[in-house]
């Protein structure tokens, strides 16, 4: 599979593996690691978020929702990380997805608008473009150089990249249980497991996620 061509694809393998104490429904490979225990981090920890279907939208009509809040950074100083691709595991699966990388410039370059225009996405109805948030987005996988601890100690004033997924949901809804990010660093291939669940509400989604 060509990881260099950005495409989110769905792993249908039912084989489970144990990785960092978490059981995955998809194969991460021998060099897989959970967030926080490898070179690439998405600044995440287990949890998740859902978005309700927009009020008044006919049940049969598909809708787009954008999920983000994951900042890609390096836990290894002076290490460049080449992102190769993102794998998503959805059940129910989305009708369509787009993986985007949002570049947020240093604080000094965010002056032309309110600071709230530069916050991370979290959840937003529609595509990223409709979110009203600033920052350039690209489908091209970036090279990540930003050091995680420097980023946190700067209170995110340093430039950084947010991993964003736009999802088109049908009536059943979408439950993206986890992300796998394949990357290359220090001459080796790795896979980052992000245990952050993103849910678009629908008829087949657990009521705990949707009110």
């Amino acid at each position, binding site marked *: 599979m060509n990881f260099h061509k950005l495409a989110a694809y769905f792993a249908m393998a039912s084989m489970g593996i144990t990785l960092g*104490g978490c059981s995955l429904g998809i194969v991460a490979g021998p060099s897989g690691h959970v967030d926080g225990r490898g070179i690439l981090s998405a600044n*995440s920890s287990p*949890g998740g978020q859902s978005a309700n279907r927009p009020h008044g939208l006919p049940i049969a009509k598909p809708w787009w929702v954008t999920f983000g809040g994951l900042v890609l950074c390096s836990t290894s100083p002076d290490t460049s990380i080449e992102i190769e691709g993102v794998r998503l595991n959805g059940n129910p699966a989305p009708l369509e997805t787009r993986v985007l990388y949002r570049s947020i410039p240093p604080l000094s370059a965010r002056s032309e608008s309110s600071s709230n225009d530069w916050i991370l996405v*979290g959840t937003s109805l529609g595509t990223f473009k409709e979110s009203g948030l600033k920052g350039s987005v690209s489908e091209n996988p970036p090279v990540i150089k930003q050091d995680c601890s420097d980023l946190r100690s700067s209170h995110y004033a340093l430039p950084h990249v947010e991993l964003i997924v736009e999802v088109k949901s049908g009536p059943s809804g979408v439950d993206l249980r986890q992300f796998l990010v394949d990357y290359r660093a220090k001459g080796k291939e790795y896979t980052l497991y992000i245990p952050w669940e993103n849910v678009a509400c629908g008829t087949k989604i657990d009521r*705990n996620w949707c009110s």
Partner: protein
Amino acid sequence: MEPLVNVSDQEAGLTPITLEGAIPSDTVEFSVSADPSATVVDALNPGDTLPEFVLRPGMFSWGEGEFQVAVPLSSLPSKVVGVNGIVNFTVTALDSSGDIHTTTASAQAVQSNNNTQAWVDPESGVAAATDTESPAKADSQAMRRTNNTHRPSLPQVPESDLKDAHVTLGKLTRLSTSAKLGPSKRKDWALAGTCGADTLVNTTRVWSRIGTSFPVGATTAWMDVDGRTSRTYGVAVSNTNKFGSFSKSGSQTVSSGWSNEWARSGNQRSYEVEVKYGLYKHLTLKYPKCEPTYYWKPIVETGGTSVTNGIGRPSWTHCVKVVEGTWRRYTSSGSAYSNSSAVNISGVIGMDLSVSRQYSNSQSLNYAIKTSKPKMLCGNNDEPSRAGSIMEKFK
């Protein structure tokens, strides 16, 4: 100091390093004891002897301003081993001027998938990410543990997480004393055992905040805790037991045996649990007499829960945009909830103590978000997916 454990022994899991830390460079005597487990202490009455276990020479080494404790779980008596392999330690050093330096800490025994045993900080999240024994099973094991044949099942963690695992202690708390002794009397100083066993002087019940939520508008929030979790509470120490004389001195971890899902609410509120604390009296020989050291230590959570509504709203700025839906944090990594004065014990000792607890699959914070206008969730010390506390704001 000669290290007790070399790297190859640690990697082979032969003798896992338990604790390490700094002590005064002029330390003349040093001791480590393991406190009786919560199950044992909770059954005692004021005035009863505390069956602690004083670690023997060979289980620790010290010198040149540092110490190391290395003891396999199998070398500790069952009476000091708590649920999920948590052991509470008290470390004491005596300096050349006769002052006592002390602190407390918990270490949790864990096991890798190839049976290597190691010790980790219970609040590090290493063991919390795994599915440990059920509370019911753990309780029944604790009750049956009357000899060394019954051991709790240890949390299983990946081998890669155990590299160089141990608990590092913070600075020891110094207790000044007027009973100074000259160097010639050093041989007469003894820290543990010489003056008899520790005693449980008294117990008290106090409330501790373990989390907060700050919804706005029609959003509701709640916490959900089940019996597989643990929390770490502050310890206070004094050599007089007078009100106002106590100092903070490390912390100890308490496993819960209760569960609670707080009702959903739109109030700005804190979530509280009731904790039983015990006043432990420890005697140190300073020839020709024995001098006491008093510790207030957490014993057990009683299962009592409460909320305080109407707490003040903070102003946090690590924000993400959110729409109507649900947001959950049940992580065991990232930042733990921590609060340096969450344990409301000032009425007893003159100061409040700390609490720290990790989120986990069995300890979560939830927001059911309703939006009439744009909103954000904001973390106190990081972006919400990693932060220790979360608030909701209008955008």
